[in-house]
Structure formats: C-alpha cells, structure tokens
C-alpha cells in the first residue's frame, strides 16, 4: 500500500480536534457546527431530548461562519473556534478583527436564540477559541501567549477565558490536540465553568 505524507492545513487541524471530540464522548463535548467546504453541515445543530442533532440555525450562503462550535452540557459551556493552519495567520490584524467579529456574532445568535432545542443552553458560558498547527511542540505556550495578546487588542472579551487548541505532531507523525487554557496546556479538553 502507498504511504502518503501530508501537510497540515486548517481542514486537517480542525478535523484532528473533531476526531478527538468524537472519540472522547465521556467528556461530554459534541460538535454543534463545523465548517467544511461543502455539504449538509452548514447549519448549527443542537441535541434534542433524544440526543439527536436538530437544526437550530442556518447560515446565509455568504454569511460569516466560525470554523467549529463545541458544546458541553455537563459543564454548560460553548466554545466558538476560529481556525487557521498557523498562528501567524490568526494574529494578522485584519484576520483577528474578523475572527473576533465572527465569535461575537455567533455568541449573539446563540444567546438570543429562541429555538426550543437551544433554549436550555441560552445561559451557557461562551468561550472564544483559536485553533492552529505548530511545528514545534516546545513553542505551544509561547504561541498561545502571542495569540492571546493579539486577541486582547481586538476584543473586549476577557483574554483569560480564551482557549487555544494547538495541534502538534509527534515523532511518529501522529497529530495531537493541546488545549491551552489560562496558561496551562492539557491533552484533554477538561474545563469547568
């Protein structure tokens, strides 16, 4: 069989996090929205009483969308994620302004949603997040700091509530999530409200 090599881009980085969420269901996280290029995913969904995802919001064709929305009903948390392949792209001034605008816009949609399936989640705490890939595992905390500073310049939200999801590659070429919250990096997405 042919062994393919890969370059990590935004799509792959985001997918690594989605695979983690799917495989760690015991932690209670689920994906309410993901932003692949096409397909039946261009809507925000919420789990109904039977645990089945139902549409609660549909984006306009040209509407700005985040890259990922994660929800945890145990912790009563929502994470709105903006992703790029490398952090340098995220901290570009125009990009950071756009990311903040998207996060704030989606927050407003969720907070004001009158959809019956979202109603129980209207009061959930919403956390902003960025996701990217790093070549150097040792620079995770440094990159986190740089992104946090860029975010602070563009947003009125508390930078201490920012979660950064940094994808790294180990010596075997396996990709991993590193969830950085309040200056600490964790292999698992363990946050409490």
């Amino acid at each position, binding site marked *: 069989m042919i062994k393919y090599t890969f*370059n990590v881009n935004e799509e792959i980085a985001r997918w690594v996090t989605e695979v983690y969420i799917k495989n760690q269901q015991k932690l209670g996280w689920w994906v309410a929205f993901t932003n692949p290029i096409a397909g039946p995913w261009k809507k925000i969904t919420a789990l109904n009483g039977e645990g089945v995802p139902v549409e609660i919001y549909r984006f306009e*064709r040209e509407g700005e969308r985040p890259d990922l929305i994660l929800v945890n009903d145990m912790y009563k948390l929502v994470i709105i994620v903006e992703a790029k392949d490398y952090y340098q792209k995220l901290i570009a001034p125009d990009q950071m302004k756009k990311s903040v605008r998207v996060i704030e816009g989606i927050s407003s949609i969720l907070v004001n949603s009158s959809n019956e399936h979202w109603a129980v989640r209207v009061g959930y705490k919403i956390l902003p997040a960025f996701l990217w890939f790093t070549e150097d595992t040792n620079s995770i905390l440094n990159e986190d700091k740089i992104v946090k500073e860029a975010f602070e310049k563009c947003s009125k939200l508390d930078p201490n509530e920012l979660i950064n999801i940094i994808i790294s590659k180990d010596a075997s070429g396996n990709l991993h999530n590193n969830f950085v919250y309040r200056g600490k990096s964790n292999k698992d997405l363990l946050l409490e409200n």
Partner: protein
Amino acid sequence: MKIFHLEFWADSFHEGNWACEELSKFFTLKKLHYEQGFIPVFLFEIDKEKELEITVLGSYKNWSPLPQPIAELLEWGKPDLVVFDPAEQKILLAVEETAAVPTGNQALQRCERIYGSLRLEIPFWYLLGEFGVHIDGGVRRDSIWPTVLGIKLSCIKKTPCIVLHYSDQSHPEDYSVGEGVHSLYAALATKIGIFMGTKTTTDLQPILEEQYGHMIDFIKSQGANVVNFIPNQEVLYNINTPKEISKLVTSSDPISNKSLDFFNWGTTVDLPPDIYKNITPGGLIKQDLFINELEKIVAGKHAYTLSGNAGSRPQHKESVEIWLSEQKALFSTNISPDAYFSLKIADFPKSISGRLHVTTAKNVFYLVDSSAEVEKSLKRAFPRLKKLTMKENLPSFVYISNSIKPGRIFGDPYTGQLSAFANIFTKNVAGKKTRTSIAYYPHQVHTQLFDNKLNFRKNKGIILMRELLDFAVFQGGVLVDMKNGKII
C-alpha cells in the same frame, strides 16, 4: 480472509466520513480507527470471506504523492468525493454534492466538473437540492441543464453520469427529504460490490434505471420553466428509455443507441409549428455588429434561441475602463495584421444605476441552421474575414460570452456554460457532431489563448475550448481555428 482496499479522497474529511457512514447501511461496519490520530479507516465485513477497508483522505492537495488519475481529474474542479482503487490506480467514480440549489450561472458551474469527469470516462454522481432558498428568500428549483448534460454524456461516453435530487418545495435544501441520498449510496455500494466481485453490472442496472427515470421525470416537469421546447419528447415519455440508457452505460458490448435519439435541438424546419411561428429576434442591450447579424438570421427564421432571459449585470465604469485598457494592451497586431482593437467606453450603454451594461444579446447562444449563414454574418460584421471558409456546412451553435475582464473566459461560469451547452447542442447521443461549434467573445482579445511561440497555452479553459469549439471569434473579428490554432 480477503481484504479489499479503497481510498475515499475528498475535499473535506466530512465528505469521506459521511460516505462511509452511509455505506454502513449497506455493509456491516466492523471497526473504525484513526491512523496518525486523524485519518479515518473503516473496516466493513462483506461476508465470511471478504472485508473492505476504506481509508478517508480529506483535503486533496495536502497529500503526497497525489495519485496521478486524481490529479488529472482535479484539474477540472474538485469533486467532493473520489472513490479510488490504489492497487490499480483507478478511479471507480466521483461524487459532487451541494448543500444549496445553484441558481443562475451557478447551476452551470458544476457542468465543468461533470464534463471533466466524463471526458475521462469516470462515472459521476451529482447530488443536489431540487428546491433551495435563494439569496432573496424565495424558493428556487434546480435548472434542467446539468441533468440534460448528464443524460447526454452518459449516452455519448457510455458511462453513468447521474444527477440526483433531495428536498422538496416544503423542505428546501433538506438532505433527509427525497430519495437522492439513499439512491446515491445504493449506487455507490453496488459499484463497490462490483469492484469486490460480489455484485455484477446486472445489479447496478435497476438502480441506474431508477436514477435515469428520475432525471427524465425532472426534465419533463421542469423543462417548460427553462426552455421554449424540448425535442424528441416521445423518447422522454417512452417508459423503456431509462432502462435503455442504464443498459447502454453498463454494457461493454457496442449497443446501437438509435432508439435513444433525443435531446437533438434541430434546425428551424424541425421545430414544432407554434415554436417556429414565434421565432423572433430578442434584441440587444449593448450593440454589436456580429450579433446584430445573428439577430437578422433569427428574423429570417433561419436561427432560433431557447430563452431570452440572460440578465444584464451592469459593471462599474471604473472597472470597465481598467479591463478595456488591459485588453487593449494584450491586443497584438503582429499576429493579426489587419485587425484592430475597436472597443471604447462609449460603446457600453449606461444602466439606470449609472453603471455600464456589458451584455449584448439577451440569450447565451444561437442555434443557426447553417454555418454558411454564420460565415456570411461574420464577413458582414468583420470584412477582414472575407477569405474565411468554414469547411463543414453543418447547422451551427454560436455561444456568446460578454465577459471583459482578462482571463475570465477561462474560468467560472463561462467554462461551465460552454461545457453544458456545447455538449448538449453540438453532438447527438451517439457522440456524432451535429453542429459547428463557435464561440464569440466580443470583449476579449485572442492573444490570451497563446504563448510567445503562438502555441496554445495550457489551462483548463483553453483545453475545454479546444475540445468543444471549432472556432472562437474575438474582439476585432479575429477568428481562431480551435483545432489547429490558425489565426485569421
């Protein structure tokens, strides 16, 4: 235990993953694991002796080496899913799916991908919503052209080319409504079964028959909203037609497809009397010498159009000025000595909003009864073409693109329009040429086709134009023979 291996290449991991999840309705999913922390590998149990392992590779161009057959297909646009046999280095099929109903030009954009796949004889399934919400909030229904193209290319290439729909008027853009999704994966599972030797083409035929039946029903139901008339209706209403097409595309034997002579928009004498009676020129928004001549042929009832609702999208004056200046700079008299660039800003009429109309004819193409008529029109409009002779005197298809921005004619939506209309109107279902194929680019300069040595440049648009056109006419009446590169 024999394990078969396939790769599902996709634009997004979701597409490949979704396909595997849908396949688990047809095969028993035994195991799913993620290589390197993210590459989905699905293991299906087929029977006691066979298993199927599918590896999903999302985001095509991030992988190396990208298999050559996939790279070749991607040049025509990225399908959402490509099912690939790595051992044989062969694409089994490609799938395109869209979440929203394409409207206007968007409906034709995907036709380039359809043609791109079929020219390589790769079976193609296109799944889209039959009903969708337009940007204005209204509900729109899909255009018939991708479906007509699908049937026509199926017959020409003897390869399945299927358009499937989901949703209905009350549930626009809803994947769960309608048969489209299930039907797609029933076909996909059967194609994979054929690959593994557990199914035969006989098993695929009834699925394709149903799918072609759906396509024909859709054209019968939606056709009148899109075109003045559809020819050979008796074939569309023949209950055996879907079966005939499904046999044609699954058999390796040469089958005469005489009974499938349809979608042939003939000359004016072939038109139904009421359609012939109502042939009238549509008029122009922006004046053009050659198109005025074509309109005269329509007035004489030796040419017709199928609809006259090409909307004008006026452009900012500043943009038109820049594009004109860029086109003028590209114009070279070295290779067309007596031609000159004649366009000026005053040629473009002002719209109510103050922008400039660039649209000439109100229709995208003309169907002219003979190429001799087109030749005469070209000579009247451009006297410099007095020595022009179009060798074959066939009926003609004249396609018009009013684009001004340099290079635009080599991309969307123009390549999609050309892929659809040139295949539909210049060949019969046996692939035999029925019309001379001519494109007219009144605002574009011919030099864009060539490199410094006057060889055709190689981009997707030019490859497509060379495959689908006999002649292309550019600003100043410069005519290029698209088969041999001769410039007149």
